[in-house]
């Protein structure tokens, strides 16, 4: 196998990895906010449910959660799973796992906001939703950016866990080629890919942080 062919195949895997990454963020960032609301809700039942959910998601391996989401429908409900479900399962598992981490980050950010901001908004007549989305959330986002960046960088590397259900993302493909051709090259190339991917992520997040630094 020539280097070009190998890189081409890895490149295809890379695209899948990027897709997992993007879709996970797309779903888990808003979902995390909803979970955070549940966690801080006045309703004790809701609070308890989200607490258990977060604790399970953070307390068990993501790889295991992947297997459960992928095989669960078949083992539990005897539903035949088509090959299209594989990628969906990856996204579901990643999204609900990362939502739990993001929820805790949101919560710490929201709880760190001084109560005076809510009170000033209330006296000025802002409604609850306006207060949250215009006054609180923008400040929360600035405060939690460093923690979110950490999670996102972990996510880049975690996308490789999709190999557990044989999703053909970059790491899975690299491993296959390495085994078939008995060479370490594809694994090294994959490492470089992940590294560059994270470099880009870090640069982007730095930009975002800078964009938020116009105030203190």
């Amino acid at each position, binding site marked *: 196998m020539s280097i070009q062919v190998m890189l081409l195949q890895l490149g295809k895997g890379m695209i899948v990895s990027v897709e997992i990454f993007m879709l996970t963020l797309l779903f888990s960032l808003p979902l995390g906010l909803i979970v955070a609301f549940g966690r801080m809700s006045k309703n004790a039942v809701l609070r308890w449910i989200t607490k258990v959910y977060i604790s399970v998601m953070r307390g068990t391996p993501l790889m295991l959660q992947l297997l459960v989401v992928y095989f669960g429908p078949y083992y539990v409900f005897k539903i035949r799973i088509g090959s299209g479900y594989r990628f969906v399962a990856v996204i579901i598992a990643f999204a609900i796992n990362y939502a739990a981490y993001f929820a805790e980050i949101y919560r710490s950010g929201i709880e760190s906001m001084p109560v005076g*901001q809510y*009170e000033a908004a209330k006296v*000025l007549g802002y409604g609850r939703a306006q207060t949250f989305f215009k006054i609180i959330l923008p400040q929360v986002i600035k405060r939690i950016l460093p923690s979110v960046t950490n999670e996102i960088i972990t996510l880049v590397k975690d996308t490789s866990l999709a190999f557990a259900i044989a999703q053909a993302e970059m790491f899975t493909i690299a491993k296959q080629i390495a085994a078939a051709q008995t060479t370490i090259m594809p694994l090294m190339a994959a490492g470089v890919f992940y590294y560059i991917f994270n470099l880009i992520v870090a640069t982007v997040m730095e930009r975002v942080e800078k964009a938020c630094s116009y105030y203190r």
Partner: protein
Amino acid sequence: MKLLEMNHVKKNFDGLEVLKDISLSVEEGEVVSIIGPSGSGKSTLLRCATLLEQMDSGQLLYLGEYAAKDEGGRCVYASKADLKRLQHCFGLVFQNFNLFPHYSVLKNITDSLLCVDKLPRQEAVERAEKLLAQLGLADKRDAYPYQLSGGQQQRVSIARALAKQPKLLFFDEPTSALDPELTVEVLKVIKQLAKEHMTMVIVTHEMQFAREVSDRIIFMEEGVIKEQGTPDELFGTDNERVREFIGHLSGK
């Protein structure tokens, strides 16, 4: 005309009686100062009046209209819509300003005019700019709160409250977070407002200022109004406790 009326207000914090049967009314154009030792319930009283805190019992009226009624010893608040409307009557200036740090000075003032009061942008901006000019902050229009001194921040927060054109303005220790030099500039603004007959209720530890600016001073202690009257009455009182407090704070 009575702008604000509070009758027999009581407030507990988990068993701690912070307000014990307080009644207070404020006439249009009146400047009322509230003084008293720390923990006497001054802030709690303002917070009840501004709907930041719920009273346990008592009545609260703005312009003769009930915001909260006493029904058999329990306090029943008006509907959300009514409260929202009554909220328009008053503004509140906080001890620590509570400006929105992610908004420029101009946006701090105009944002609620635009998205709460639905004013046209041009009108909101004109109103803000006029106030900023009056308060000597015209050049700070586009600055962010962190770029301002404490005194400037407090003046912006006064401008923010005034921009809503309230009938009554509450101040909770507006200068307590400020250095003495910065205190002067904020007190000057409040004195100017008093001259323009703005109705104000001011919690303060600045005795000289209270004496100059107030039509009436209220001395609170342990959740009750111990004494009230014109500045001259209060500063000339026989009440040992009040004399001691005033003397202590005015540096004898």
